[in-house]
């Protein structure tokens, strides 16, 4: 599923709003999710899951081509933890994974 298919799904369940409004709503939701994480703020969505930042310690990496050591600074990366209901429902799903 891509962003445009997500917009289509919402439109089909919400026919009285113009598609343009739904596109703006999706854009706004994604912007707010990104901004919260960029500010180090957790996101908690009931029935879906939570997003938080994980810290990766500074380390010496390697240039995979040359093998040269490269110093990598510590950084924060976004992490998603599925909520219990989503996790348990997905866990037992028998539908084959689709190649979109």
């Amino acid at each position, binding site marked *: 599923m891509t962003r445009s298919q997500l917009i289509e*799904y919402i439109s089909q369940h*919400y026919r009285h709003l113009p598609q343009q409004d739904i596109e703006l709503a999706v854009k*706004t939701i994604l912007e707010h999710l990104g901004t919260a994480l960029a500010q180090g703020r957790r996101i908690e969505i009931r029935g879906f899951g939570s997003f938080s930042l994980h810290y990766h310690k500074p380390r010496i990496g390697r240039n995979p081509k040359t093998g040269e050591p490269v110093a990598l600074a*510590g950084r924060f990366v976004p992490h998603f933890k599925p909520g219990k209901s989503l996790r348990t429902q997905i866990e037992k799903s028998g539908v084959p994974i689709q190649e979109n």
Partner: protein
Amino acid sequence: MVDSEGKSSALTKANLAAALNGELGINKRESRELVDLFFDAIKTALFDGHCVHLSSFGNFDLRDKNQRPGRNPKTGEEIPISARRVITFHPGQKLRTRVDGYAGSRE
């Protein structure tokens, strides 16, 4: 956002609905329903075995895991972990770059 104990709190669906209402002028009831539909759409796709790719944000991918041996950490007893499907989230380049600039305290 500050919660009842005065601590900075997590972003929730209520905050997202308030943003749709405040920034786009969509009424409060519709804003709540749109936020619910947004997450329902992602959930439904994942239930149906579809990965979800939101280019500016990230990808929700599905992986099938085989059964593997596990242990009850309390008793040390060996119990198999059954085969299952899991969701993995890979943040997109744009989100990674934005978060990379965050210089807050380590969690």
